[in-house]
């Protein structure tokens, strides 16, 4: 009897030896004359358990992890191919509380299917949204997305449907859909997991966006730090074209939409949408002044939808289930779900998709399991390198765009990076300035020069100079905030000042 065994090909699983585990399983099965069929799925998102090996049994998939190649003989001895018990066994995968308590909407297929298997994609609900969209008028597609309340997941949280409406209304001989897959924020990996674990979902979302606004060409701008995602996505594009899902005649509709993959080259600021467009055009990633909006004058000067991977990947199911179903999830003006990413010093780091409104504390402790080091958690940075550091007094803030803005923070792309009590918040503030100096596009003086000054001022904030330098630092932050063209310079004060305001003891004179 052939047993199906799943070992993720997600790069987080690979980083912990998933390929070696596969080799060991193949070797051990051959030696024991057992036949296994290996499926390389995406990751379930329980990253501390990677490589998470799943075995298909009569009662569903059961999980073992974290498995190393050295564990494999013992797993065979324990009869894991029949779901046998072992110290690494976790029972049915979908009953593991971390997974069971989530609401998987955008990430519904990630970890479940073979990411490149076209038939599996369709069997698990893929293409339903695109088929519906093909039968709708462009304006009706746009209004469905407006009704869903979906907001941009790349950082700024702008309503996706409203952006699409602008592009639909623009007159042009060519329009584009540009997917922002630059995912530069530390602590984030949901775009990567989706592209590696369910790449057709992104392509379907882009095709629907194309139909909605009248664009026939799509570009994905992928960061070069993601070679595994590059391979998955380029293979998925080729297969989707060959299957007629992309190309001149999408699903036999007579309508055209194609997708091209372009690689970034190691620049954080190229995640800013206009810098990304410059980069796609083959130029330095220097931020453009707005207006004109990219929706009107975007890629190669044409009207362009720019959306994050998570934004576009939410669209197929929004079309399939209807905008109202999505809008029923979440709180206030933060509709739907967000795949949160738990990172840094947490015992159970991984991806947790939940409707907006859960508190940070729930994510840190109920899901994250507290610190990995066993020491008390002290500071949490939410929303990437331009996000605030939150002290414990703010951990009961519900994760929604407005509630976070109210405490001076940002949800951003949903990255949550936890630090234990060994963190030196002066060093974190200094790093925020240093990062701004390294990544500034150079267009505005405060960002280009002020960030380097910021590093120096923080270094000098000691002894008798301390208070005078603090005043200088605050001044500098005000200048950055008010005189920067984009959020790189404009938001760098958030991590710096939140560190200073909430963790002043780390900025003592001596």
């Amino acid at each position: 009897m052939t047993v199906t065994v799943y070992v993720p090909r997600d790069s987080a699983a690979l980083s912990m030896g998933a390929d070696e585990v596969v080799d060991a399983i193949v070797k051990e099965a051959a030696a024991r004359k057992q036949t296994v069929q290996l499926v390389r799925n995406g990751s379930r998102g329980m990253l501390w358990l990677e490589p998470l090996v799943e075995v298909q049994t009569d009662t569903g998939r059961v999980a073992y992890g974290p498995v190393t190649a050295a564990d494999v003989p013992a797993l065979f001895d324990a009869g894991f191919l029949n779901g046998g018990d072992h110290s690494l066994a976790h029972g049915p995968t979908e009953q593991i509380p971390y997974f069971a308590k989530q609401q998987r909407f955008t990430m519904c297929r990630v970890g479940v299917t073979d990411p490149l298997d076209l038939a599996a994609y369709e069997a698990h609900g893929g293409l339903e949204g695109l088929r519906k969209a093909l039968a709708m008028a462009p304006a009706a597609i746009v209004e469905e997305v407006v009704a869903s309340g979906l907001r941009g997941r790349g950082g700024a949280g702008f309503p996706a449907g409203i952006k699409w409406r602008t592009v639909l209304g623009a007159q042009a001989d060519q329009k584009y859909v540009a997917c922002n897959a630059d995912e530069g924020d530390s602590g984030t990996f949901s775009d990567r997991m989706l592209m590696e674990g369910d790449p057709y979902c992104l392509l379907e979302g882009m095709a629907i966006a194309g139909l909605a606004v009248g664009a026939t060409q799509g570009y994905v701008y992928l960061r070069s730090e993601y070679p595994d995602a590059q391979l998955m996505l380029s293979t998925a594009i080729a297969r989707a074209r060959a299957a007629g899902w992309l190309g001149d005649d999408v699903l036999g509709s007579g309508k055209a939409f194609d997708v091209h993959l372009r690689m970034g080259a190691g620049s954080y600021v190229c995640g800013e949408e206009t810098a990304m467009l410059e980069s796609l055009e083959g130029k330095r990633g220097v931020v453009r002044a707005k207006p004109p909006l990219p929706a009107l004058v975007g890629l190669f000067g044409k009207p362009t939808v720019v959306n994050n991977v998570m934004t576009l990947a939410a669209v197929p199911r929004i079309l399939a289930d209807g905008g109202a179903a999505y809008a029923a999830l979440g709180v206030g003006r933060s509709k739907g779900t967000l795949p949160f990413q738990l990172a840094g010093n947490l015992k159970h780091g991984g991806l947790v998709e939940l409707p907006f409104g859960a508190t940070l504390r729930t994510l840190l402790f109920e899901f994250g399991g507290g610190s990995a080091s066993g020491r008390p958690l002290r500071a949490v940075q939410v929303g990437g390198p331009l996000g605030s550091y939150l002290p414990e007094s703010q951990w009961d803030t519900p994760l929604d765009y407005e509630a976070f803005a109210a405490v001076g923070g940002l949800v951003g792309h949903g990255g949550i990076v936890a630090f234990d009590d060994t963190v030196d918040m002066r060093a974190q503030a200094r790093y925020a300035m240093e990062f701004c100096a390294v990544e500034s596009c150079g267009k505005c003086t405060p960002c280009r020069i002020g960030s380097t000054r910021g590093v120096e001022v923080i270094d000098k904030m000691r002894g008798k100079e301390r208070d005078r330098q603090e005043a200088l630092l605050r001044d500098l932050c005000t200048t950055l905030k008010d005189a920067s063209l984009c959020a790189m310079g404009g938001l760098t004060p958030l991590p710096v000042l939140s560190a200073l305001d909430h963790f002043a003891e780390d900025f003592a004179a001596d």
Partner: protein
Amino acid sequence: MPSDAPSAHAGALDPAQSAAVSAAIERLRDLPGALLPILHAVQAELGFVPPAAHEPIAAALNLSRADVHGVVTFYHDFRSAPPGEHVLKVCRAEACQAMGCAQLERHVEQRTGVAKLHGTTADGKLTVEPVYCLGNCALSPSVQLDGRVFGRVTPARLDALLAAAQRGAKGGRS
């Protein structure tokens, strides 16, 4: 902030380099926004973008040599000198900081003699570069060695990875 220094005086391309550059240009020049794809292709083939390649690339794309130079120097990925046999990128972003990447950085510096995570060892075997997030932040600290990501990297694990890489021949993707 990327530097705007004028390019070092460019030597001539050797025949193999010249062939790689021409092949990349011919294959990719008709793409919209072809410059980055061409630079990536050249670096994938040669490990770096020789300054002498700026001129033929500029000519093919109807750009000035300064345009190409400006793009090459803007992006952290593009190298203007050949890398070592293996390339190690060490993540220094926040999630890795939270799990002690500073110690890992110091270990790399001590072991390789490469200061500030930027440079190539004297024997030409290893190039070290900083990187700002590899998307492996739940399994930090992370490094990328010859294009492959590794998570939960302790100094001891790093030594083992480097030793294994040196035993194997040439590195893979970088």
